């Protein structure tokens, strides 16, 4: 349970360092460069763009069960404003839809 492979730990640290660098670099960059106008608009669309890109293959190109469950997740989240409920209903619907053979 508490096994720890040193090589694995080193890879984690390398991945963590790379990620930390990504997190800090934008802050550091902003010391001499501030996005404005069109550049700012483009940066502001980024989170939506990233999230959409992450979900798109599963939501639109995996199967009918996944597509329908994605739709259900979005509708529940928007209607109730509750993230947790949206996620739970999403998981349950994908389970049900798959059992139905979709």
């Amino acid at each position: 349970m508490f096994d720890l492979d040193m090589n694995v730990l080193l890879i984690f640290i390398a991945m963590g360092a790379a990620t930390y660098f990504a997190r800090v670099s934008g802050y550091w960059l902003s010391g001499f460069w501030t996005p404005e106008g069109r550049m700012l608009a483009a940066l502001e669309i980024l989170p939506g763009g990233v999230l959409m890109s992450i979900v798109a293959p599963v939501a639109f190109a995996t199967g009918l069960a996944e597509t329908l469950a994605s739709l259900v997740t979005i509708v529940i989240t928007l209607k109730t404003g509750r993230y947790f409920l949206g996620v739970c209903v999403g998981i349950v619907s994908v389970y049900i839809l798959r059992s139905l053979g979709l």
Partner: protein
Amino acid sequence: MTALSDTANHTNDFQLGALRIMPIALSCIPFGMALGALAVQKGFSPLEIVLMGMTVFAGAAQFIAVDIWSDTISPLTLVGIVVMVNLRLVLMSISIAPALRARKSFATYFVLHFMTDEVWAICMQRRSEKALSLSFFLGAGLTLFLVWAISSYSGAMIGTVMEDPTTYGIDFAGTAVFLTLLCGFWEGCKISLLPWLIAAVVAVLAYKLIDGPWYILCGAISAMVVRAMQYQEREDAVHV
């Protein structure tokens, strides 16, 4: 140096940050558990998956890394893929920087380790109402950090007894979390519709055509390009 009222504000802001992230942190529990379960199936120990969460602390990247992990894969490939998936953090960091710069505090470099998509989103929301404090950021970040560690550990413990996560729909947890987060970024048809649509189309195409997590970067960049072009049109309309 710090006045009493300031200290009080720090505590309140820390609590508020923790409170605001809570519903999202709860939604991440199935995601963390799924990651833990998957990691155990890949041969990681529960301790290892918790340590991964603490060092990397980026759900999507961890999922992909665990997914492609094998004895033969080179560490360089793994780090490269993590960088690719996490490139968006550079842009998030740029966008949040003006709010943090005002503080000019060295602690920013500590707090930034806790910046995930979720924490970033909550902090940007906060910035639109009031000045963002490091306490708020840390409150949100640490809460998610703890929930992440606990849920991936529990998932790993459960994973040792669960055969296949797809049978329970748990593999959908990640997508569901990202979908609910996506809902929060909708800024109306004029701004969001076209960039999101193009991002989805490009991401699906790239997913089918290119191996690896490039599709995330391809989709995100196309959304930015579309938005930049849109913005110009809008400006012209205003000026003419």
